[in-house]
C-alpha cells in the first residue's frame, strides 16, 4: 500500500528584542547564570508582568510577512505545569485568542511551488534551563533565558515530505532573519522546531494517528528525524500494527526516534486567561506603520534581482541568502553600474574570502564603494582583470581602496601607445631568431612576443593594446 506522510510543524523563534517579554532584563545569550534576572522573571511572590511592546511589534512583523490575519484583540493565558526551569509554575503564552491566524508561506520543491498554511502565530515567554552537575547528583537552575520572548508559528498539516518540511523551515528561518527579528541560531536554540507526523493511505482523506517529534536542533536533523519516522510508521502500519499517539525524541547519535517516558507527557496544562495581563488590542495605525517598515522579503528580492540586474536565478538566490549580502551586492551594483560584474566579484571572490575566514558580510573589510571602484577601474582599462585579482586580495587584507593600492605598488596599467611601441620594438629587436621563425609561418610564436612584452612591463601593459600593436608591428616588419 502506498502511504502519504502528513506533517505539521511548530516553530519556536526567539525574538531579538533587547529586553525580555515581561520585564526589563537583558536577553543577551551566554551571560553568567542568573545575572540577567529580576524579581519578575524569577517569579518572586507579588510580582506582575508588563508586556514589552517591542515583542508585539516583532511578532506582528512575522504575522504580516506570512500573510496572517491579525486579531484585533488577543489574550494571554497561563499554561500550568511544574518544572524547576519554570519559576512561576506556569508559562505565560497565548491560547484561545492568539495574535495572528490563517497565514501562509510559499515554498519551492522539485522546481515546483507549494503553499503551506500557517494556523497561528502567538507570543510566549521562554523558560530557563537546567544545568546538571556531571560530578555531583545536583542540578542548577539558570533563569537568564526565563522570560525571553518567543513566537510560536504553527503550520497546517500541509507538508507531505521531509524535503517539504526542510524547505518550509528554511523559508521561515530566512524571513525571520531577514526582518532582523530573530538571529536564527539553531545551536543556541533561537530557532527550534517540533513536528507532528502521521501516515495515511494515499487515497484516504482522514488523518492517521500522529506522533510528536522533539529534540531536533538542525535542519538536517529535522529532515533525518522525519525520514526515520516515516519509515518507522510505515513499517508499523504495513505489519498490521497501529501507531501510538506519543511524543518521541530524536536521538542524533543513533539516528532514531524513541518514545518519551510516559510520565513526562501526560500533561493537563489547565490553560486559563492570565488575570495579570489585560487584552492586547492592536491599533490599526500602529499596524500600518509596521507594515510600512517591513523590508523587502527574500522571495520578492530574488525575483527583482533576476529582472532588474539580469543575473541568473541561481546567483540571485545566493546573493539574497541574507539581507546584508543582498544589500552589499546592490550597493556595488548601483555604484559601479555593472551588476553582472558586481555579482561575479561578490559571488566568487568576496564570498570565498569570507568563507575561508568564517566571517560575515557585515565584517567584510572591502566596502561596497571600494569594490565598485575596482570594477570601474577595470572597465576603464586602468588595470587588467588579472591585476585586479591581486588588488582585491590586497584590498581584503588591508581594507585599502583599489586606487591607493594601485598607486602604492605602481600597478597602473600601461595603455600609452608610444610607450608600448617602444617596448615592442625593443622586444622584436632582441629576438631575431623568434622573429624569423614567426615570419616563416610559426604563428604560435605570437604568444611568445606578448609574454615578452608583458614581462618587460612587469605585467602592467594593457593586454588588448599589446595584442593590437604587436600584430600591427610584426606585420610591418
Amino acid at each position, binding site marked *: 500500500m502506498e502511504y502519504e506522510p502528513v506533517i505539521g510543524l511548530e516553530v519556536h523563534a526567539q525574538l531579538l528584542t533587547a529586553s525580555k517579554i515581561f520585564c526589563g532584563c537583558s536577553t543577551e545569550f551566554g551571560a553568567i547564570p542568573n545575572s540577567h534576572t529580576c*524579581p519578575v522573571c*524569577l*517569579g*518572586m*511572590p*507579588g*510580582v*506582575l*508582568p*508588563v*508586556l514589552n511592546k517591542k515583542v508585539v511589534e516583532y511578532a506582528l512583523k512575522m504575522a504580516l510577512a506570512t500573510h496572517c490575519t491579525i486579531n484585533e484583540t488577543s489574550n494571554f493565558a*497561563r499554561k*500550568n505545569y*511544574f518544572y*524547576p526551569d519554570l*519559576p*512561576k*509554575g*506556569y508559562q505565560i503564552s497565548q491560547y484561545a485568542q492568539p495574535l495572528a491566524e490563517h497565514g501562509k508561506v510559499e515554498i519551492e520543491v522539485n522546481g515546483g511551488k507549494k503553499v503551506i498554511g500557517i494556523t497561528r502565530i502567538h507570543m510566549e515567554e521562554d523558560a530557563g534551563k537546567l544545568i546538571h552537575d556531571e560530578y555531583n547528583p545536583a542540578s542548577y*537552575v539558570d533563569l537568564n533565558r526565563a522570560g525571553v520572548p518567543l513566537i510560536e508559528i504553527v503550520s497546517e498539516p500541509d507538508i507531505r515530505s521531509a524535503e517539504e518540511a526542510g524547505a518550509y523551515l528554511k523559508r521561515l528561518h530566512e524571513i525571520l532573519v531577514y526582518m532582523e527579528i530573530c538571529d536564527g541560531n539553531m545551536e543556541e536554540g533561537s530557532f527550534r522546531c517540533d513536528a507532528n507526523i502521521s501516515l495515511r493511505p494515499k487515497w484516504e482523506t482522514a488523518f492517521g494517528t500522529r506522533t510528536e517529534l522533539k529534540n531536533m536542533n538542525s535542519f538536517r536533523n529535522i529532515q533525518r528525524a522525519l525520514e526515520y519516522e516515516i519509515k518507522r510508521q510505515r513499517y508499523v502500519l504495513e505489519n498490521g500494527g497501529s501507531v501510538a499517539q506519543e511524543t518521541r525524541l530524536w536521538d542524533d547519535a543513533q539516528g532514531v526516534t524513541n518514545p518519551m517516558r510516559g510520565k513526562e507527557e501526560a500533561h*493537563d496544562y*489547565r*490553560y*486559563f486567561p492570565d*488575570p*495579570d*495581563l*489585560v487584552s492586547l488590542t492592536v491599533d490599526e495605525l500602529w499596524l500600518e506603520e509596521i507594515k510600512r517598515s517591513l523590508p523587502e522579503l527574500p522571495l520578492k528580492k530574488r525575483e527583482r534581482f533576476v529582472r532588474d540586474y539580469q543575473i541568473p536565478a541561481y546567483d540571485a538566490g545566493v546573493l539574497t541568502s541574507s539581507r546584508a549580502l543582498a544589500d552589499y551586492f546592490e550597493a556595488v551594483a548601483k555604484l559601479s553600474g555593472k551588476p553582472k560584474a558586481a555579482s561575479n566579484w561578490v559571488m566568487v571572490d568576496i564570498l570565498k574570502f569570507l568563507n575561508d575566514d568564517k566571517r560575515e558580510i557585515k565584517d567584510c573589510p572591502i566596502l561596497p564603494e571600494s569594490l565598485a571602484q575596482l570594477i570601474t577601474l577595470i572597465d576603464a582599462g586602468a588595470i587588467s582583470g588579472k591585476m585586479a585579482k591581486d588588488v582585491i586580495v590586497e584590498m581584503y587584507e588591508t581594507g585599502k581602496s583599489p586606487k591607493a593600492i594601485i598607486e602604492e605598488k605602481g600597478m597602473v596599467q600601461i595603455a600609452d601607445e608610444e610607450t608600448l611601441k617602444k617596448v615592442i620594438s625593443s622586444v622584436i629587436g632582441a629576438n631575431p631568431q623568434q622573429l624569423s621563425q614567426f615570419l616563416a609561418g610559426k604563428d604560435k610564436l605570437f604568444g611568445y612576443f606578448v609574454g615578452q612584452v608583458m614581462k618587460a612591463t612587469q605585467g602592467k601593459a594593457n593586454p588588448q593594446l599589446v595584442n593590437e600593436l604587436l600584430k600591427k608591428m610584426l606585420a610591418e616588419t
Partner: protein
Amino acid sequence: MKLNELTIHELQDKLRRIEVSAVDIVSSVFDRIDAVEGKVHAYIALMKEEAYEQAARADEDIKQGHIKELTGIPIALKDILCTKGFRTTCASHVLHNYIPPYDATVIEKLKQAGAVFTGKTNMDEFAMGSSTETSYFGVTKNPWALERIPGGSSGGSAAAVAADECIASIGSDTGGSIRQPAALCGVVGMKPTYGRVSRFGLIAFASSLDQLGPFTKDVEDCAIMMNVMAGYDPKDSTSVPMDVPDYRSFIDRGIDAWTVGIPKEYFIEGIDAEVMTAMQETIKLVEKAGARCVEISLPHTDYCVAVYYIIAPAEASSNLARYDGVKYGYRSSKCRDLLEMYKKTRSEGFGAEVKRRIMIGTYALSSGYYDAYYKKASQVRALIKRDFDQAFTKCDVILAPTTPTPAFKIGEKTDNPLQMYLSDIFTISTNLAGIPGVSVPCGFAGKGLPIGAQFLAGHFEEGKLIQIASVLEKTAHLKSRRPNL
C-alpha cells in the same frame, strides 16, 4: 487620650503644631503593643527598630518644615505586602523565611508619604479565610472579645487598628478580607475599585479579585490613606491610568437628595437580628441626612459564593504554583527526587485551607471540567457585574450589611468550611464586579460586638463612599467607643 488612640488627621495637627514628636507617637504605639499584643496577637513581626528610625527621620523632616500626608504616622502592614529586606510570610510555612528583594508599590508610596511602619500583621494563610485562624503563626483575637475571631483574612490589620496598636493599617480584600474584619472589629475599611491601587508587591491570591485598601479609625483617615495609595502604576498592567481625586474633599459634603439602593437579596432571613436592627437604624440615619432609600434588586446574588469559590481557587491554584521549594521559601529536606521534593514541600508548606483551595482550583481548570466550572463561573461573573451596572443607574450608592453576623467564636467554624465561606456572602459580589466598597461601624450587638454597614458604589466612585460614610459616622456617634483590653 493617648497618642496611639488618635487618628491620622488629629496626630498630623499635633505634629504640625509641634505639640508632639513622631518619636512620641511611635513610642506610645509600641507601649500599647507591649501592653496588649500578648492578648490580641495582631502582628506576625514587629518593625520596632525600623519604626524608631523612620520616626526620627520624620521629626527631622518636620523640623525642616517638610510634612507630608503620613509623616510620622505609625502604620501596620498586612504580611502579604512585600517589604524589601524584611521577612514577608503571607502567614504561611512555605514563606516562613522569605525576605523580598523589593518593595511593593504601595510600600514605596507610603514611604514617600513619610509613614512609619510598625510591623507585619497576621492574616489567614495566603489570605484564604474569614477569621485569621488559618495563619501558620496562630490566631488573632478580636480586641472587643478575645474569645472571638477578628474576621479575615486581614484580621491582624483590623485588630491592630481596633486595639490602637497602630494608627492605621493596610489590608487586602479578595472577597471581603478588608470589609469583613473592619466590620467585626469596629473600624473603617475600604476595598477600592479593582485597578485603583497597584497590586505590584501584593502576594497574589486571586489576581482578578485582589485589591489593597486601608483600615482606619475614621472616615477622614480612610480618605487620607486613599490619597496616598491610589493611582496608576506602570508595573501593574491591571491598574488604571486615571486621575485620582482628593478623597478628603468628599468629607462632610452631605448626601442631600441622594438615592441609596437597598438590595432586597441582602436583607434575607438568617441574618442576625441585631445586625438587622443596626441596618434599619442606619437606613433611618441615611434618610435623616436627606437621602432617599429605594429597594433595588441584584438578581444574581445567589450565585456569588459559588462563582467566587471557583474563580478565586482557580487563580490561586496557579498563583501558588511558584511555591515549589526550588527558589525560595520552605523546601522539604531529604527528598530523593524532584517529584518528591515538590510533593513534600507543598504538603508540608501549605496549611489545610490553602491545600483545599488549590485542589478545588486545579479541578475547576482541568480539561473536561473547565467549561462546566471556570468558564461558566466567568460568564455568571459578567452577569453579576451587569446587576451592579444596572443598579447604579437607579441609585448613587448601595447600602447593605457587611456581614450576616457579628464576630463568631474562635474554632466555631473551622470544621465547616462551607459555613465559613458563607460569612463572606455580602462582600464577595463587590470583588466579582470590581467595584469599590467601604465598611463603617453602624452599631453594636448586645455583647458589645461591633456591627458594620457596607456602602458600595460604581467603578472609581470611592469619593461617593467617603462622602456617605462620613455622614453615617457623624450621625451614628460610635467613634468614642473603644474595646476594653
